[in-house]
């Protein structure tokens, strides 16, 4: 038995929900942008904002610098809006939600009823969930309890109406419309996503979470998330995602913006499990995402933790702009690719303020015929006196047909900044596997144990609820990785 004998993993979230949806015809022009904006009853300024983004996007071409290869996306073949029919303006309570949808989330282990907790979690800490199905938010739990603490947690389409001043002030302030091709596309057609506002001095009383699901065929999902943490506040936010198994590729182009003011802290965790395609590389999600946080205030902190196991192609660099003095940025990442998956992921840490610090821990695991790249930028400006960065970048290869690549960029413009970079590449060896087998452990469990050990530094950073989940997910994604 050798670790080269790879067989595909089972994707348990791959089912399709039969729900009556309103889906617009494929293709993108100004009328589609206006349709989406009208559908959400948006104010004029936002419609204009979208149109500007669209006009910019129209003149751009997709980026090609990432170490990923795929046929050109036909943006005219994608439908830019799909919503389950009954949702309409958004259901007033869970009773209005299509029971078929509730069953969908039950199957995925996502609690829509407030008395339930996330699947597999024994700890009875409630988690508030915003549930996004294709282009709309289905429901948000624990809204009332959060409101008592002054926390706003709602679909962004709702926030546009209920808190326009906050949305207008911060939307696009971290990721501008023209930031990149996919961010521009998202700005033009984003349909839903979560909005979070934590008032000054408030420690959010529970974990907030958004669960994204793509269901409809030939549609893209373009959600937009905006999180604002006022002075001295704290929030931990979790994000999960799945999609049905379909033969064609589907586009997911999200934008996430985080703003941390003085002494505020945002912890953002992702478990990304979009459909990765089948064992021959057919189908799967194109995950082209722009995530960025701004540490605007002194001593603020933004921490990204991601566990990326899904998607056919991942193109994603959750970043932190460290503007406030003494602010802290962190990036902890596990990216696992199997079969024909391709991942090009990493981070950017932009040091602008004094004594700003950043930590990057990246763990890439490549199995099958997959390609896994780390791409990271550490930049210090001339004003960033005393800036420090520590980067550790480890790759683990399973079998002999996968690839691991590291593209670190360092742009240091401050002579007294300290930047450290460490990188390793290792292989799950036949000898390690044999040691485990000789102690009675079957090879699949052994590989999962070895990979989990490799990822320990990152899993430690995940909230309890997700750490368990992430471990299980790795096990499933590697299922049959040894035969």
């Amino acid at each position, binding site marked *: 038995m050798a670790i080269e004998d790879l067989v595909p993993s089972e994707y348990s979230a791959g089912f399709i929900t039969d729900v009556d949806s309103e889906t617009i015809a494929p293709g993108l022009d100004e009328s589609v942008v206006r349709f989406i904006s009208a559908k959400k009853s948006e104010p004029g300024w936002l419609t204009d904002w979208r149109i500007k983004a669209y006009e910019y996007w129209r003149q751009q071409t997709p980026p090609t610098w990432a170490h990923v290869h795929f046929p050109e996306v036909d943006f005219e073949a994608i439908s830019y809006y799909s919503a389950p029919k009954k949702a309409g303006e958004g259901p007033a309570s869970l009773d209005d939600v299509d029971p078929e949808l509730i069953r969908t989330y039950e199957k995925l282990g996502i609690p829509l009823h407030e008395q339930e907790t996330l699947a597999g979690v024994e700890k009875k800490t409630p988690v508030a969930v915003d549930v996004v199905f294709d282009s709309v938010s289905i429901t948000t739990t624990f809204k009332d309890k959060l409101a008592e603490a002054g926390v706003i947690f709602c679909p962004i389409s709702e926030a546009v109406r209920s808190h326009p001043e906050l949305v207008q002030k911060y939307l696009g302030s971290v990721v501008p419309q023209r930031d990149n091709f996919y961010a521009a596309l998202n700005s033009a057609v984003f349909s839903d996503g979560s909005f979070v506002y934590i008032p000054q001095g408030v420690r959010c009383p529970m974990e907030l979470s958004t669960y994204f699901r793509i269901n409809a065929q030939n549609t893209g999902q373009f959600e937009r998330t905006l999180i604002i943490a006022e002075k001295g506040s704290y929030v931990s936010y979790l994000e999960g995602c799945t999609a049905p198994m379909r033969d064609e590729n589907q586009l997911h182009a999200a934008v996430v913006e985080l703003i941390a003011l003085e002494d505020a802290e945002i912890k953002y965790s992702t478990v990304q499990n979009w459909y990765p395609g089948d064992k021959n590389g057919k189908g799967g999600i194109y995950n082209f995402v722009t995530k960025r946080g701004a540490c605007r205030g002194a001593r603020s902190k933004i921490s990204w933790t991601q566990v990326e196991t899904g998607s056919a192609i991942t193109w994603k660099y959750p970043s932190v702009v460290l503007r406030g003095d003494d602010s802290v940025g962190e990036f902890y990442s596990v990216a696992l690719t199997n079969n024909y998956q391709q991942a090009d992921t990493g981070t950017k840490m932009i040091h602008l303020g004094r004594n700003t610090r950043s930590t990057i821990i990246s763990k890439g695991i490549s199995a099958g015929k997959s390609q896994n790249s780390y791409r990271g930028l550490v930049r210090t400006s001339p004003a960033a006196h005393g800036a420090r960065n520590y980067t550790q970048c480890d790759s683990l290869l399973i079998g002999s047909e996968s690839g691991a690549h590291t593209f670190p960029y360092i742009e240091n413009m401050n002579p007294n900044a300290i930047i450290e970079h460490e990188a390793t590449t290792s292989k799950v060896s036949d*000898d390690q596997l044999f*040691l*485990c*087998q*000789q102690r009675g452990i*079957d*090879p699949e469990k052994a590989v999962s*144990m070895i990979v989990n050990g490799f990822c320990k530094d990152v899993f430690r950073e995940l909230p309890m609820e997700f750490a368990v989940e992430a471990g299980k997910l790795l096990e499933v994604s590697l299922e049959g990785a040894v035969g």
Partner: protein
Amino acid sequence: MNLLEIQDLHVRVADQLILKGLNLTVEKGSVHAIMGPNGSGKSTLASVLAGKPGYEIESGEIFLDGELLNDVKPEVRAQRGVFLAFQYPVEIPGVSNMEFLKAALDNIAAARGNQPANTVEFMKQVRSIAKTLDLNPEFLKRGVNEGFSGGEKKRNEILQLLLLNPHLAVLDETDSGLDIDALQVVAGGINHYRNTDNGVLLITHYPRLLDHIVPDRVHVLADGVIVRSGDKTLALELEDKGYAWLTD
């Protein structure tokens, strides 16, 4: 019934025939020492008993407790009670020793239809074994063999032996690279493991280990076959004369 029975075993490694008709019987409650010059096939014997990939049985049979072992997967052999103490234990970074030991114990228990060990009891047991082997409990939290000295790695193998308590212990040059104090600790562990129901196959290059673990039988392996068997006095003879007189 004999614990281990090897009949006319021929083993090929990468196109080269290494074992060329080896016969060996290990009774319950006994310690057999396998000695021999470098390249005689000692480690191949250990590997093929454990079912290591790449060691191809060309002909011959291996029986454990009367059951044919030839085509049994390595993990199933372990579950049935074959234990190999490695000559060069590999490192598994990030997987703590404690976690690894629990996984091993639980998998073996599950294969035998038993419940997994109670975690608290398990940890107590591991700590107490570690103490007898003079191993700092701190090392149980470290990655498997990660950053261990040669002596620590060998003592860690004996810790696994005592915890898993197999039917047949195959010790592949466990004495190599040990100073005299460590050798005594390791030998003490092996002697502690011995009982009337299990057996030990002690593969060693140096007779000095046999001062600490007294074998019932000593076999000399040369060019893939056993050329001489005897009692413990054979080891003393080898110490005096070397191997040349047997292999010429």
